[in-house]
């Protein structure tokens, strides 16, 4: 067994010579092709990220709209139940007797308008994308 470093210079020369002797046929356009491949992929991933960032407020808006619509519907049902006449009344009488309060109607309209607007916008975006 040799001591550490004993043949290091010899081996380094041997390897260096082996490295020098190796000849490779290089494609002159190889570097350019790799660079453009990387650049194209970079542009594509930037565009995907940009689209994802742009869609983020839409997704958030849709979520808020869905919550608002659900809350409005829940409130409407609550008002409907509250406004129900006695159980003994006929169906027709029951519907005739139902009256939404101005507050419920306003809340429903308030929640539905932006929700529908956002949904329509999102639908358009989906079709365009």
């Amino acid at each position, binding site marked *: 067994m*040799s001591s550490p470093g004993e*043949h290091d210079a010899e081996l380094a020369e041997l390897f260096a010579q*082996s490295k020098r*002797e190796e000849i490779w046929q290089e494609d002159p356009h190889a570097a350019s092709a790799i*660079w453009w491949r990387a*650049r194209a992929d970079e542009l594509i991933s930037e565009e995907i990220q940009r689209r994802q960032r742009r869609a983020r407020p839409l997704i958030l808006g849709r979520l808020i709209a869905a919550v608002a619509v659900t809350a409005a519907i829940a409130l409407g049902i609550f008002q409907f139940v509250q406004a129900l006449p006695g159980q003994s009344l006929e169906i027709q009488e029951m519907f005739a007797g139902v009256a939404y309060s101005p507050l419920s109607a306003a809340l429903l309209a308030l929640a539905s308008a932006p929700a529908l607007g956002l949904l329509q916008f999102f639908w358009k975006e989906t079709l365009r994308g």
Partner: protein
Amino acid sequence: MDEPAFEEFYRATAAGLRTYLYRVCGERRLVDDLVQEAYYRLLRSKFASENSEEVVRYLFRIASNLLKDHWAAAKKERGTPAKIEPSAAGASPSIRLDVHSALGALRPADREILWLAYAEGYSHAEIAGIAGLKAGSVRVMLFRARERLLGILRPNARGESR
């Protein structure tokens, strides 16, 4: 890195990277794929350093990882590690053939650290960074690999001196 800077970097480093990969894996066709992929990943990684040596080391590290990934996939398929093929590049002086075939008789990990140490001149810490090893392990592994290589080269040297 813009296109002209990359082309210059490629010209300066591609041959060294190719030879390193070829000496470690021994498959010429695989080397072409790995070289392309290594440079591509270097560009995509946006690794930036004022020190060009550091960029080269990072490139070698990517190439080393790619090679290990390839071996892992090939081992799953074939169940055996890659065997080094006889050198086919240009003229074949005996000394290069000796190194090439001697390396072929070693384990891939030995080939890698020997090449990085003696052909590229990297320190133990740098080899550790490239090959994903601990610096302390590199010292021991390199010593053992060197012994194995000398064991293979010595009979050849004796044969030539006769």
